[in-house]
C-alpha cells in the first residue's frame, strides 16, 4: 500500500460504504458532541419521523453557548438571570436529552463546560476517532489526532439517527511549522500567522495537518488552540499526529481507555501518524522563530499583523469597509489604541494554561481604570484547577471578573457582550462585525496580549511586561 497521511488513515478506517461517482461516502462517527444551540431542530426531525437516537452512548452532550456565566445559587435561577429565549433553549436541551436517553453534562454536572474543552479534558476525544458537532470549532479535537469537523443541524439529525454522515473526501493541506517560539509568543500567535498566510478561504475544501518542530514542541492545550482556528482559514478540520505528548495527556482521563485497553489503544494510535512519503494536495512552510505576538486589525481573522506593525494599506472596498468599522487607520500602529473590554476565555484560549499565562501578567498588577476584564474558564474542571492555584484571586485582585464556564463573550448569546462601538481585545476566535455584540469591535490576540491590554488600558506588547 502506498504511503498514507494521518487523515487518509482515519478516513479509510471509518468508511461504512465507499464513495462512488454517484454517491458520497458513508462515514462512521465515533463521537458526537451536542450542545443546545444547533441541536433542537435535529431532535424535532427525529421526533417527527419517529426515529430513535441510534447510539446515545456515542454522544457527549453539554450546555455552553446559551448559558449565563454569572454564578447562580441554583438552576432554578436560570429564568431569572437569562434572557427568556436562551433559558428556553437550555430547558429544551434538558428535555431532548432526557427524551432520547442521552446523558447531559448539565448544570448539576461537575463536568460541564465548553464542548471543545470538555471533550479532550474527559478523554472522550481520542486519536484516530471521527468526531463531529454542530459547531465549526469542532476542529479543536484534531489536536489529539482525530478527524474532527463541524456540521450543520440537518447533519446533527443524520448522526443522531444513523451515527453516520454522507461525505465527499476532502483534499489535504500540510502546514509545516518550524522554529522555536520566542518568549511572549504563543500558539495563538502561530495560528493567527497561519490564517494571515493562507487567508480566511485558503483552506476551503481541505483538511489541514499541522507538522514540524514548533508543533511537536507544543503541549496538548497549545495544539488545541492551533487546531481550533483551522476553520478560520476555511478548513473544516485540522489534525496533529498523536505522539507521547498526546498519550501522556490522555492517560488516566475518565473516558480514556484504562489498563490493558489503554496499552492496546496506544499501540494502535502509534500507527496513525502520516507515513514517510505521504502525499498532500498542498504544502506550506512557515518559520515561526522570528514570530511576534499577533493581533487582528480588521473584521475577519485573516486581517492580522504583528503587534508592532502598522495597519496595512489596501484599496479594496471590503478592506476599507473593515478598517472603517474597526475605526483603525491604514499606516498607523494599533499599539496604544484605547481598549474598553478584555475577554479571556473561549474554546480557543479558555484552558488552564491560557489562564495561567494571563494570570502571570496580572499578578501584582491592576487592570486600567476604564477597562472591563472578564475571565471565563472553559469548563468547571478548568475553573476548579485554576482556583486551586489561586488564579481566581489574582484576577479579582487585579480588578477583573471571574465567571462560571461557558462560551460567554465569544458569541454573546448569554448576556456577556461588548457594547456597540466599544473595542474589545479577545482571546476568542472571530472578529467578525458584531460577533461580540451588535456594533462591537474585536481585536483577536493571545491571553498574554489580552492581559497586557487590560493592564495598560490599550493595545500593548506583552513582551514589555514580561520579566
Amino acid at each position, binding site marked *: 500500500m502506498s504511503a498514507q497521511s494521518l487523515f487518509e488513515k482515519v478516513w479509510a478506517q471509518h468508511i461504512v460504504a465507499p464513495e462512488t461517482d*454517484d454517491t458520497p461516502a*458513508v462515514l462512521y462517527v465515533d463521537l458526537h458532541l451536542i450542545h443546545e*444551540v444547533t441541536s433542537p431542530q435535529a431532535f424535532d426531525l427525529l421526533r417527527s419521523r419517529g426515529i430513535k437516537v441510534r447510539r446515545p452512548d456515542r454522544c457527549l452532550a453539554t450546555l455552553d453557548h446559551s448559558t449565563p456565566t454569572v454564578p447562580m445559587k441554583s438552576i432554578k435561577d436560570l429564568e431569572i438571570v437569562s434572557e427568556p429565549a436562551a433559558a428556553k433553549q437550555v430547558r429544551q436541551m434538558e428535555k431532548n436529552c432526557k427524551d432520547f436517553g442521552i446523558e447531559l453534562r448539565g448544570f448539576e454536572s461537575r463536568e460541564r463546560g465548553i464542548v471543545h474543552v470538555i471533550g479532550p479534558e474527559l478523554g472522550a476525544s481520542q486519536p484516530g476517532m471521527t468526531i463531529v458537532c454542530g459547531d*465549526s470549532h469542532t476542529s479543536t479535537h484534531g489536536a489529539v489526532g482525530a478527524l474532527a469537523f463541524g456540521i*450543520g443541524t*440537518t447533519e446533527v439529525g443524520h448522526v443522531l*439517527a444513523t451515527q453516520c454522515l454522507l461525505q465527499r473526501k476532502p483534499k489535504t493541506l500540510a502546514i509545516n511549522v518550524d522554529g522555536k517560539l520566542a518568549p511572549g509568543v504563543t500558539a495563538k500567535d502561530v495560528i493567527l500567522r497561519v490564517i494571515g498566510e493562507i487567508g480566511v*478561504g485558503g483552506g476551503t475544501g481541505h483538511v489541514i495537518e499541522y507538522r514540524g518542530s514548533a508543533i511537536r514542541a507544543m503541549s496538548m492545550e497549545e495544539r488545541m488552540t492551533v487546531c481550533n482556528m483551522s476553520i478560520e482559514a476555511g478548513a473544516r478540520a485540522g489534525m496533529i499526529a498523536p505522539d507521547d505528548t498526546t498519550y501522556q495527556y490522555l492517560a488516566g482521563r475518565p473516558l480514556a481507555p484504562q489498563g490493558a485497553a489503554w496499552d492496546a489503544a496506544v499501540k494502535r494510535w502509534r500507527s496513525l501518524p502520516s507515513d514517510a512519503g505521504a502525499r498532500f494536495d498542498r504544502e506550506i512552510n512557515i518559520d515561526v522563530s522570528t514570530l511576534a505576538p499577533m493581533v487582528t486589525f480588521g473584521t475577519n481573522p485573516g486581517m492580522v499583523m504583528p503587534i508592532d506593525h502598522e495597519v496595512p494599506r489596501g484599496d479594496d*472596498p471590503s478592506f476599507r469597509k473593515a478598517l472603517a468599522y474597526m475605526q483603525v487607520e491604514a499606516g498607523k500602529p494599533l499599539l496604544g489604541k484605547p481598549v474598553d473590554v478584555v475577554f479571556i476565555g473561549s474554546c480557543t484560549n479558555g484552558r488552564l494554561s491560557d489562564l495561567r499565562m494571563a494570570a502571570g501578567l496580572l499578578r501584582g498588577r491592576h487592570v486600567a481604570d476604564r477597562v472591563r476584564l472578564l475571565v471565563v474558564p472553559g469548563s468547571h474542571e478548568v475553573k476548579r484547577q485554576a482556583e486551586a492555584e489561586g488564579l481566581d484571586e489574582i484576577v479579582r485582585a487585579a480588578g477583573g471578573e471571574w465567571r462560571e464556564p461557558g462560551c460567554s463573550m465569544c*458569541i454573546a448569546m448569554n448576556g456577556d457582550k461588548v457594547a456597540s462601538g466599544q473595542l474589545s481585545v479577545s482571546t476568542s476566535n472571530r472578529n467578525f462585525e458584531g460577533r461580540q455584540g451588535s456594533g462591537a469591535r474585536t481585536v483577536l490576540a493571545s491571553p498574554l496580549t489580552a492581559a497586557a491590554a487590560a493592564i495598560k488600558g490599550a493595545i500593548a506588547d506583552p513582551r514589555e511586561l514580561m520579566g
Partner: protein
Amino acid sequence: MEPIKQIRSKTVVMPNDDIDTDQIIPARYLTTTTKDGLGKNLFNDWRYDRNGKERADFVLTRPENRGAQILVGGHNFGCGSSREHAPWALLDFGIRAVVSTEIADIFRSNSLKNGLVPIVVDDDTHRWLLANPGAEVTVDVASATLVLPARRVPFPIDKFSRYCLMNGIDQLGFLLEQDAAINRYEQAHA
C-alpha cells in the same frame, strides 16, 4: 423539500468579500428552537438601524431588488460558524441561490440540504455579475449551468446533491437505507 429544477430570477448584488454567517444571521437570533421566521433577521445588523428600522439604502431591501432570488456575493461567501440558521434565514427571506468565487464548506453543505443552491463561478463571470446587478439569469440545476444573457457557465455540484435537489429528496432517507452496512461496520468495530 420542494424539488428544484430551475430558478429564473434577477440577481441582487452584495459585493462584500468574505460575508460570514455572523452577518447573515447574528448569534443572538440563534436561541430559537425552530427553523421558522429567521428571514426577518437576515443580515440584521446591516439591514436595520439602531431603532430597529429598516435602512432605506440596504441593498437587499431596496424596492428594485425585492423579489430577487439569486444573491451574488463578493469573494468567499459563508465563512465562519456552522449555523444552519444562515441558509434557513436566506431561504425564509426568499433567496434560493447564492453565487460567489468560493463558498465555505459547511455553509455549502447546509445550503444543499435545504434547497439553497450554492454556485461557484470563475472570476470573469463573477466580475460580470457584480457589474450587472439585477441581471435576469437562470440557474439550471439539471445541467448545472448558470445561464447569463450572453453565455452559459457550468458550476460544480456533486451528482448526489444535484439528484437530491432535483427530486426534493432529503438525504436522511438514503442514510437510513444503509442500516445493514452500518450494523456490519459496528459489529466489525465493536
